[in-house]
């Protein structure tokens, strides 16, 4: 019993460290957003920080660092289904017939310049 209560004492200490880390990363993500890296790097950095914060919450507050196998299985399935859904959503963007997109011939050029990663898919 005494060993258990010691465990929880050291756990509580870790919760405070995690709290500190989460505050730090929150400040970091706001700070970094003032530096204009451009959209792609900006999104990557912001999502990376969010992922780090998310995994801190999940592994410590949600006790995932010491959980039973079945929970991990549920989570892995969730990740697979979530990524599949997101892929379907994004894929649907490239499945719109030519005439139905925002682009018309004159405007098309400026839109392409704004969104350079779109024009390869248009050829299909």
């Amino acid at each position, binding site marked *: 019993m005494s060993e*258990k*209560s010691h465990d*929880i*004492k050291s*756990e*509580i200490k870790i*919760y*405070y460290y*995690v*709290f500190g880390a*989460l*505050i730090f990363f*929150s*400040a970091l*993500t*706001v700070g970094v*957003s003032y530096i204009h890296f451009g*959209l792609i790097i*900006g*999104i990557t950095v*912001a*999502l990376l*920080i*969010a992922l780090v*914060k*998310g995994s801190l*919450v*999940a592994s*410590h*507050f*949600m*006790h995932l660092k010491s959980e*039973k*196998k*079945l*929970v991990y299985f*549920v*989570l892995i*399935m*969730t990740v697979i*289904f*979530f990524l599949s*859904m*997101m892929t*379907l*959503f*994004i894929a*649907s*963007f490239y499945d719109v017939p030519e005439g139905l997109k*925002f682009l018309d011939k004159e405007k098309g050029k400026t*839109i392409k310049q*704004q*969104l350079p990663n*779109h024009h390869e898919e248009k050829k299909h």
Partner: protein
Amino acid sequence: MDTIPFTVQPREDTGLFNAKLGIWIFLASEVMLFGGLFSSYVLLRIGSITWPLGSDVLNVPLGALNTIILISSSVTMVLSWAALKEKNLNKFRFNLWATILLALAFMVVKSFEYGAKFSHGIFPKESTYFAIYFTLTGLHAFHVLGGVVVNSYLLGPGTKMWKTDPERFVNRIEVAGLYWHFVDLVWIFLFPILYLL
């Protein structure tokens, strides 16, 4: 009374008490709910001609404040569970109170943000960005309210179980905590994508 078995002892085949498996499956469905909207956000954004920079149209300091508030409430939630593990009911009450009050503080800040937008005549119909902004943050706010309801029950009448079946009560707090940390986790992703990018 005990219609649901394995509220304390883990089931042999799952290795978990039933409520824990239940909440994780529920959270998986929640990931799909929010995931669908996150995917919509990505689709709407890559499909749109213009997209405002979040920090130009929203109040970043208020959003950051709400991030701090929600992270703090996550900490007090896990501390309330740890307090029960230490058999310290007063500490448990203090931390769960703090969790609920922080959640309400989050809602107050959020309502100020919404109010500022509405008073400027900005509603979801304003643009695709505001449509997805109000949908995502609105759904998230409902989840915060749901957490307040559950935690208030556990702090009020629910605490009686501490006397009759303490281990089961600790498990209830853990499960409520898992939900609450998930709500925090969603905000951790919502804040940068809506406010900063």
